[in-house]
């Protein structure tokens, strides 16, 4: 099955991004695919390359990037939400790209299931 994910929160004050990441990993391990993850609201903060968690903590920015590289996942960050929060190409982590909300609607149209991970 093809899953599309929407991540609505940043990496530290909500569980949403961790849950979405674990879901994506588990789904892929079970033979499903996750062609695209869309980051909206504070979820755009998952793409900030300047994020430096303490060394004994997981780094979701890097984990998402690595998962995307290993499994061809299109990580899309909403441009309008990103600009508000200072996320621009200059600080965009590897594996992510910035685009418009139309990419989320297309995800909903094309995937077998769309899951929202939010507050």
């Amino acid at each position, binding site marked *: 099955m093809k899953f599309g994910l929407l991540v609505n929160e940043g990496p530290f004050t909500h569980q949403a991004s961790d849950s979405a990441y674990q879901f994506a990993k588990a789904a892929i391990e079970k033979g499903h695919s996750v062609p*695209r993850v869309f980051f909206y*609201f504070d979820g755009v903060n998952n793409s900030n390359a300047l994020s430096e968690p303490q060394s004994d903590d997981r780094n979701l920015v890097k984990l998402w990037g690595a998962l995307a*590289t290993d499994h061809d996942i*299109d990580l899309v960050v909403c441009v309008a939400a990103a600009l508000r929060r200072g996320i621009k190409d200059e600080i965009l982590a590897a594996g*992510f790209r910035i685009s418009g*909300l139309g990419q989320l609607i297309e995800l909903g*149209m094309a995937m077998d299931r769309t899951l*929202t991970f939010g507050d």
Partner: protein
Amino acid sequence: MAEVEFDTEGVKKRFAYINRKAPYGSIYALEILEMIMISAAFEQHAIIAFVDDGVYQLKKGQNAKVLGMKNFSPTYGILQMEKEDADEDEDIDMEWRIVVEEESMTARGLTADDLVIDVEVLPSVELADLLDAQEVVLSA
């Protein structure tokens, strides 16, 4: 980066947008509204539901100036226009319903007359059935 393009030609799905948050104090209401506005361009069916503090998004007489914020409630009028255009224009294959959960509304001392647009008021059990019948549920 693994940019993919989806073939969405001719795809028609039933979307639902669940607005759950108060209009100011956080940006959820404004940003989900931007999401809904974009979706109109794709001519997808949609249930636009307002529940919990989300019903405050539709309250008449909002004054956000004192908060230094923009009163974006007139944008809901554009949503209503999109819905009416879709209802009236036979060339637009898009069905929208704008729904307020009755329990959330009455718990906040509001009636449909207090809201900036015309809505369907549905009890939570009926709204639950309606949402169950949608294919893509997005909420904030």
